[in-house]
């Protein structure tokens, strides 16, 4: 992230985050936790799509893997919940690397197509293998946690993973990622090992999604079921990345807030009934944002900065 | 007498790169005018400015009517046929379909136009169903010319027609253009690397350099002046 805000800003944000739980009601804390969860997933997906330019509409699948990992480990082995998140991170990293391999031969819309189909097909798997994966009934973890726990876990993980991402992206790997995005042909010509970096990006983004998935399941009472990980989840993640734009921490926050909060807020849209207001408002908002601010929040910020300077 | 085509202080750019820095020229109806000059002088861009394929400013008037911000489709409908560099042939479509597209802006039957075209290019008639991409380079150039001709344009913009063509074909092409000009009064604005050939066919010429007109005159004047020939026209 080129526009890493100064240390002061970071500390300020951290301070606000620490203070929030004392200021908000429990319901709002759960909302803030949701934003944190999406922050992690979008941060990861941003590395893949924003930086290496590979479009994935299937990262909900990785969230599912992470979520189910947590639920199953907890149900069968009563594993410490934080440990399950680490395991989810590792498993999803490996799965992401594996998925990244065929993805090497695809790009652009083709990759979007395949990941879209993946996202729609994945919820079918637990239905088929219901003995281990609980079928449509789902899997229940052995321990549940309250909203404050999730809030703390989500934002702590966000902080850690954000620093990790920053370290990765400012170094050689980050430059390689950007080279892949801007021109694959040029990147290869200058010696960038395409397959390694493209696959690596997949693995990293999948790992992040896995952690987000774990938290996601914990946030729904520790209950993992196929209907939670439908195609709309993957769509929301991609939308979050697009809203975020490229190269700005604030952008990712904006994206996470958009995806995490807007559906909840629009439930109370007066004319359109509770359930469906959500989709109508969300869909319309997404389209409007893309038409008006195609570079996402980051682009908007950049434009405002230029205006301020002039 | 107002010229059929008039350019006044026309500027054009590709994104941030300005290519034309104020071109002024006039093409009288029924004449053949050549645009000459070294590579990168802006010859092709001048044609593109007329057909509306590039961002331009300044005044361009066709038959007295300013073209303003009209795009290529609209300009074509006014009777301007642009045969671009690289011919613009629809390789995936048949010869007949290419010709049919030439007359896209015409309503009703184009039979008489087709017959006229086949009288100039008799061999095309046999190749109607052939995929245009399988024609040779020279044949594609002729097809491009034929396609422009089906429109029965008032102004023909020809961009580097001799590029990549064998001398025999080039001679044939110029013969046909001169004939069209003589028989039908077709006005032609031609960009050509082969200055000698162009000036032989043209009535007048403009020499461009770095986006500006540096010389203008009748073809006799341009051909006669030795120093001009050597420094600008390369022979």
């Amino acid at each position, binding site marked *: 992230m080129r526009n890493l805000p100064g240390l002061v800003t970071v500390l300020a944000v951290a301070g606000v985050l620490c203070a929030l739980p004392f200021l908000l009601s429990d319901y709002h804390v759960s909302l803030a936790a949701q934003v944190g969860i999406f922050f992690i997933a979008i941060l990861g997906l941003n590395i893949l*799509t*924003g930086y290496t*330019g*590979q479009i994935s*509409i299937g990262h909900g699948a990785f969230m599912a893997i992470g979520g189910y990992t947590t639920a199953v480990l907890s149900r069968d082995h009563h594993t410490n919940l934080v440990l399950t998140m680490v395991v989810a991170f590792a498993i999803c990293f490996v799965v992401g690397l594996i998925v990244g391999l*065929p993805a090497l*031969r*695809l*790009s*652009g*819309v*083709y990759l*979007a*197509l*395949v990941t*879209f*189909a*993946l996202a*729609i*097909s994945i919820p*079918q798997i637990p239905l088929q293998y219901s003995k281990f994966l609980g079928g449509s009934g789902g899997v229940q973890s052995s321990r549940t946690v309250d909203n404050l726990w999730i809030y703390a876990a989500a934002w702590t993980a966000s902080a850690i993973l954000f620093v990790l991402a920053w370290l990765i992206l400012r170094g050689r790997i980050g430059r390689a990622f950007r080279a892949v*995005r801007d*021109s*694959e042909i040029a990147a*290869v010509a200058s010696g960038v090992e*395409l397959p390694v970096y493209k696959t690596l990006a997949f693995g990293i983004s999948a790992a992040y999604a896995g952690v987000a998935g774990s938290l996601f399941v914990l946030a729904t009472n520790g209950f993992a079921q196929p209907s939670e990980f439908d*195609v*709309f989840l993957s769509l929301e993640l*991609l939308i979050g990345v*697009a809203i975020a*734009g*490229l190269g700005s921490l604030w952008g990712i926050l904006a994206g996470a807030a958009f995806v995490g909060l807007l559906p909840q807020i629009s439930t109370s849209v007066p004319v*359109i009934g509770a*359930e469906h*207001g959500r*989709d*109508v408002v*969300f*869909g319309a908002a*997404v*389209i409007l944002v*893309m*038409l008006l601010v*195609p*570079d996402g929040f980051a*682009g908007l910020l950049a434009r405002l900065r230029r205006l301020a300077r002039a | 007498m107002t010229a059929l085509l008039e350019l006044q202080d026309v500027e054009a750019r590709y994104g941030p790169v300005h290519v034309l820095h104020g071109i002024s020229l006039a093409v009288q109806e029924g004449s053949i005018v050549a645009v000459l000059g070294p590579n990168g002088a802006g010859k092709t861009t001048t044609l593109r400015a007329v*057909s509306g394929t590039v961002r331009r400013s300044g005044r361009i008037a066709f038959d007295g009517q300013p073209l303003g911000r009209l*795009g*290529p*489709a609209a300009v*074509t*409908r006014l009777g301007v046929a*642009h045969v*671009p560099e690289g011919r*613009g042939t*629809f390789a995936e479509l048949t010869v007949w379909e290419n010709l*049919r*597209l030439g007359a*896209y802006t015409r309503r009703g039957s184009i039979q008489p136009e087709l017959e006229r075209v086949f009288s100039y290019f008799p061999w095309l008639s046999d190749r109607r169903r052939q995929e245009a991409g399988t024609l040779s380079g020279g044949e594609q150039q002729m097809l491009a010319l034929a396609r422009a001709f089906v*429109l029965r344009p008032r102004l023909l913009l020809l961009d580097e027609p001799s590029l990549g063509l064998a001398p025999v074909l080039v001679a044939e092409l110029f013969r046909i253009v001169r004939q069209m000009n003589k028989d039908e009064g077709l006005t032609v604005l031609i960009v050509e690397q082969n200055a000698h050939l162009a000036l032989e066919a043209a009535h007048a010429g403009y020499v461009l350099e770095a986006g500006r007109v540096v010389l203008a005159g009748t073809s006799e004047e341009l051909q006669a002046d030795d120093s001009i020939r050597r420094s600008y026209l390369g022979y």
Partner: protein
Amino acid sequence: MATVESSPRPSFRSRRTDVGSLPVVLVLLLGAAIFLLVGCLQSTNFARLTVEGLASGAVYSSLALALVLIYRATHVINFAQGELAMLTTYVAYQLIQWGLPYWGAFFATLAISFALGLVLEVALIRPVLHRSVIATVIVTVGLFILIDGVVNWVWGADLKFMPSPFGNGAFNLGGVAILHLYVGMLAVVAASVLLVWALFRFTKLGLGMRAAAVRPAAAALVGVRVDRMLAIGWGLAAVLGAVAGLMAEPSQLFLSPTLMQSILVYAFAAAVLGGLESPAGAVVGGLTIGVSISLVIGYVPQISSELQLPFAFLVLLIVLLVKPSGLFGRREVRRV
């Protein structure tokens, strides 16, 4: 936003006509056709499954053709194509509720779909066409969500009953009961596909659309209004999608908002299998997928109907990895 390079854009690639594989493909198809014919003659069960497969395949073909049309014209994958088809099916439902006879509603819906497709292209797609691939993907995704919400809001998620225009009867062909429904589905889709084909092949408008799709710059130089052609392309695609939705509904017995979600995946698989820029490929691909799914589920016990979608996903993945240009596509050489 990052500009994502998409492999299908022709400007970076050279195109070679993939003549080599076409005879092979045709031979394979002929072999498959013979296999099916023999199987149908041998077993009534096989025949039944094949006819069912062809009928569902026809629906996939129609939607796949819509996807291909749009892709050829604008190089956009319209993720909302299925939802759009679902929406227009609900429009037909509403018209019938208001008293129109089925076929009146059918044709009225086609007209409305055309207009809708046109408007969508102008309002939503044209502004983002020249921007990144991601922008167009997101817009169609947003449209997906929006339409889903609107339909749920206006009509609700409960199942609706729509009368089948073909009735419940069946033809008896050598001991096999072939539902009127399946024949009807095949006939309607075949008719619409043929009409669209004729439009492209024989009319000046169709020629203009083809020219605009394949070489927009050259098309503009002959006076084709490329923008207009793209909009009409979207309109036609919406019509084909409407046909798919209207024909899908009777076989699913009830109308619900989830009508087209899985069909979209099959249509994607069909379009890719046939070649994203090949209309003929879309038709062949759709029928192939339809018949394959039907036969596989019928004869392979391990694969139940729940694995249909993953099966289609695998087909999609394998085709894209092995022969990305599909059965009928021209191979695009991408040097890296």
